[in-house]
């Protein structure tokens, strides 16, 4: 906590001095996303001040969106970007695609072929014994984890699919360029979930962090299901926007 500097001989309120120190440390890169801040009692002990002062400083930082408080765990720096997705009226929402990022990366963590999950076989309209590919990957934007996706593809529709195909092309390219399909319709189902500890680890966040789970079914010609995708969006950093009326 040596990035915090308190001068009790000046007039400036102590909670503002704490706030400013932490704000500076974040701006200068001394503190990075997900770094844990000292507890209230640690700060009180070192700087010999009341816990109300620390509480007020942290409250202010939470309000500014610079830190997140996790019940029973601590206070963490949170400097991830907020992403906004339109859900309807793509033409009306002008800023779609306007948020800029310098890099995006797909990190495949698993590629497998399976027939174990009955629910997936049902979703992909597979007959008994037919297999599907499973690929799990994390998407990083500007080096920060933003999505965790699990993709399921029927084996019979994607002969000779290899992990390199997934790594080298994005999903529309894979479906429509590498393989001869059309993305005719995409159905998305949304629900709120708490992440499991493994999901939280992959997305570099805290256990139980709130997330949007989006189940995406991709239909090709004649309404054939060509892919099923499950996505976890970090809840606090993703907003879905709708224009009404």
């Amino acid at each position: 906590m040596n990035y915090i500097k308190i001068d009790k001989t000046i007039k400036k309120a102590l909670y503002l001095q704490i706030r400013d120190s932490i704000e500076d440390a974040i701006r200068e890169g001394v503190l990075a996303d997900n770094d844990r801040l000292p507890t209230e009692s640690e700060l009180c002990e070192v700087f010999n001040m009341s816990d109300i002062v620390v509480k007020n400083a942290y409250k202010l930082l939470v309000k500014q969106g610079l830190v997140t408080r996790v019940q029973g765990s601590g206070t963490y720096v949170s400097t991830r970007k907020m992403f906004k997705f339109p859900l309807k009226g793509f033409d009306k929402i002008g800023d779609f695609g306007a948020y800029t990022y310098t890099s995006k990366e797909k990190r495949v963590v698993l590629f497998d072929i399976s027939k174990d999950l009955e629910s997936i076989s049902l979703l992909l309209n597979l007959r008994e014994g037919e297999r599907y590919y499973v690929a799990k990957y994390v998407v990083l934007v500007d080096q920060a984890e933003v999505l965790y996706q699990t993709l399921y593809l029927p084996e019979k529709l994607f002969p000779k699919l290899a992990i390199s195909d997934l790594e080298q092309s994005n999903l529309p390219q894979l479906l429509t360029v590498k393989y001869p399909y059309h993305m005719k319709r995409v159905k998305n189902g949304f629900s709120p979930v708490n992440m499991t500890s493994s999901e939280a680890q992959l997305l570099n966040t805290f256990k139980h962090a709130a997330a949007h789970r989006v189940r995406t079914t991709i239909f090709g010609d004649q309404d054939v299901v060509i892919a099923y995708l499950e996505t976890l969006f970090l809840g606090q950093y993703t907003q879905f926007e709708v224009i009404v009326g």
Partner: protein
Amino acid sequence: MKTILNKIKIDKRQATSIQLQIAQSIKNLLFDQQINYMNEMPSIDDLAIYLDVAVADVKQAYHRLVVENLLHQEHGIYYANFVNLSSDFYFKMTKLYDVIKNFGLTPTIKTIKKRVTELPVNLALDPSIDPTIPYVQLKRIYYGNDIPLAIMDIYLPQESFKGIEQMNFDEKPLYEALFFTYGKLISSGRRLMSVVNLPREDAKILNSAVDTASYQVVSITFDQHKKLIDISRSISTMNQYFEVDFEEKDIQKIAKNHFFYI
């Protein structure tokens, strides 16, 4: 309730544990909408007797579903907490009061805070919103059959609603009162949905577990003359599921601009 009891099925010959089978069976009924939102679930004892299994198995199955936010417990009674909403709910100017009514519940509202204050900085989402003017804040709890379902913080620009802080419509739907008193009709708006961990103070009011993944909706509404009516933030532990379809031209736009299809 009797009909729910009859629908829950397990197979004792299976290797899967009894509690998992009970939880899965209830989950399927919820997702298939065979159990509706806020339906009262059979008591733990009744279900244990009906299935001829240990009380502890049913207890653990219910506990698992409460953790997943699929059941809600209130005064020892378990209720279904899963809503499959039509996407219209998000795309139209639906009022929370009417939504609760649509579920077949009796809606009630209680205002727990009313004051003149500033607009929190993170709610000034639109350039047309002036955060420096005074706002009247109303904090209200929405109930369905007396069970708290949502908390809403509403900010109304004081200059457009003169004298509103003295008026008493604490238990009435807000937009109706605004129309009859001020002639303002909601005509358009924007909604931003995010999922947050339920803060401790809200969890207490909503009688839910701290940190439950909950929908937070920030909504901005404008009247018939495109003038701001209010900015509101609601949080609800209702486990809402809704679907949105994208057609071919939308898909092309997403594919081109976005990292979703990476």
